[in-house]
């Protein structure tokens, strides 16, 4: 039977006997080319962030006022900003802050959202109603305003800004995890485990968490995208990364007025943000399809 390379698209998911969950994930993920490209791009950005000192042509903070707003040239590949700092170097170092910010924010969201969501979904009862109430209340207040208020209270710096964004995103993770936990809780094998005397906590860790993992991983990927965007918004209002360091959001904020005369100053961080967020979203979709539900063959 000839195996013609199948077109991508709505393929019927096939369960090959004897295939481990991980192997099946990789077999499917390899076929999601867009997701692979996105993953590749993110790895490149992460490496650039880690090895910034080696890659960046110049010191991102070093100023030369005579080169203020220098146009892209062999010396300044992407031109220089108002203080004569090399845009490319700042972009590479900026990756550090933007990714670090995203990671911090998502970490806060996970620490806050996941355990509470798991407990609420699994334990139900008063805890669930109270936790859901708080989550709904936080979700009822627009993200940007809440973040601004929290940063206002904690004081403007990168970590506080990311804590704020983490708090704002936590209810979303809470609801995803709670939803998954509730659906798993209904499964018969949970009753079977409980019937055989397995403790609630072990059930939660053993059965509920693995099943919650796949929707959670997808949400985390989307959360990272959200965090990069949120960091840009907060930094744009001057409440994020403190000078002289700069994240992409800060670079964007500082260059807004020069959009007409020096578009590259806005373009560089703008494209970086859009591509990174796009990569996170595409990766999220890819993960979603690869981790998705297995359709038993008819």
């Amino acid at each position, binding site marked *: 039977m000839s195996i013609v390379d199948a*077109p*991508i*698209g*709505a393929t019927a998911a096939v369960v090959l006997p004897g295939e481990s969950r991980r192997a099946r994930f990789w077999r499917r993920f390899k076929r999601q080319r*867009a997701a692979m490209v996105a993953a590749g791009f993110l790895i490149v950005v992460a490496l650039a962030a880690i090895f910034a000192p080696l890659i960046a042509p110049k010191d991102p903070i070093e100023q030369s006022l005579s080169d203020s707003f220098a146009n892209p040239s062999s010396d300044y590949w992407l031109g220089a900003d108002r203080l004569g700092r090399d845009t490319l170097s700042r972009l590479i170092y900026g990756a550090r802050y933007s990714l670090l910010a995203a990671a911090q924010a998502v970490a806060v969201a996970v620490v806050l959202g996941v355990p509470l969501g798991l407990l609420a979904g699994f334990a139900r009862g008063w805890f669930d109603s109270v936790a859901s*109430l*708080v989550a*709904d*209340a*936080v*979700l*009822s*207040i*627009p*993200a*940007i*305003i*809440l973040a*601004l*208020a*929290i940063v*206002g*209270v904690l*004081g403007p710096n990168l970590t506080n800004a990311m804590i704020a964004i983490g708090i704002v995103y936590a209810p979303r993770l809470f609801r995803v995890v709670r939803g998954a936990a509730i659906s798993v809780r209904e499964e018969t094998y949970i009753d079977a485990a409980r019937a055989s005397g397995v403790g609630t906590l072990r059930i939660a860790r053993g059965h509920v968490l693995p099943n919650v993992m796949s929707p959670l991983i997808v949400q985390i990927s989307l959360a990272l*995208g959200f965090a990069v*965007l949120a960091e*840009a*918004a907060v930094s*744009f209002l001057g409440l994020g990364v403190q000078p002289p360091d700069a994240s992409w959001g800060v670079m*964007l904020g500082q260059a*807004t007025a020069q*959009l*007409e005369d020096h578009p590259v100053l*806005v373009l560089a961080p*703008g494209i970086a*943000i*859009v*591509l990174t*967020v*796009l990569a996170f*979203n*595409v990766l999220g*979709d890819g993960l979603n399809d690869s981790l998705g539900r297995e359709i038993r063959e008819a």
Partner: protein
Amino acid sequence: MLRLAARRLLKVVPLLLLVSVIAFGLLSMVPGDPAVQIAGEFATEEQIAEVRSDLGLDRPWIVQYGDWLGNAIQGDLGTSPFSGVSVSTQIWQRLPTTLSLLGWALALSVLIGIPAGTIAGWRQGSVVDRVLTMGTSVGVAIPVFVSALVLALVVGLKLSWLPATGYVGFSESPVDWARHLFLPAVALALTGAAEIARQTRAGIIQVKNEDYVRTAKASGLMTRQVLGRHTLKNAMIPVVTVVGLQISRLFGLSVLVEQIFNIPGIGSRLVTAVFENDVPYIQGTVLLVGIAIVAVNVAVDVSYGYFNPRVRAA
């Protein structure tokens, strides 16, 4: 249906209370003391303390909250410490502007998002689907304040097809009102439509594999009926939820868009309030928006009854 709505409304009361606590509590902790603003740079410590007590800021938190909530229920959200103008009037003056902007943005988002999502979902795997999917991913990825500025600069100023700034009330001239709101609404609708399209696509894909859609096809119904009636109506539940979420998201983003397009809505006043530390205005706005979003969520829940008769009977 009514019982469902009543039960849902009952659940709303504690939620609103919590929103008000967050709105009041969080914002009253924001540093930067309004009393110093009013007293001026030459005031002495005592004078600042005196102004603070006039504003009632020296009372314990709970008392301030109780007082504020009591008034809020009667529609009085306090006064801005600087201009002495009541917050409620400020919001009331600016509400129609923001509602027009959000109305436009939501309409555009829905009119673009749902059809795009339906086509992408119905023709899953086709080129159209992949283009639309990638388009929505990009749409979601572009920061709103970037698209807003580009629209303002390129379409507004350079091409001057549409006004780059300002707002004209509907009563004054509906045409100008629409023209002034178009660009900011598009800037907002870009991400709004993308989000709705993604959800509609997922909904359509899930529903189109249902047995009853196969039955409809097997009965030889036209695509218009199979897709338009049978599939769409059942796919709408998740979509309506997302549209509900969009309203809260669009308001948050409109704060920046109103600023860029200089539209005198609740949002642009919020930016100046944050910078002026006009806490009563911020608290009033956050409370009002919270109530509006809770109301939207209730409406969304109740709408499930329309889409799913089984819920209606519950």
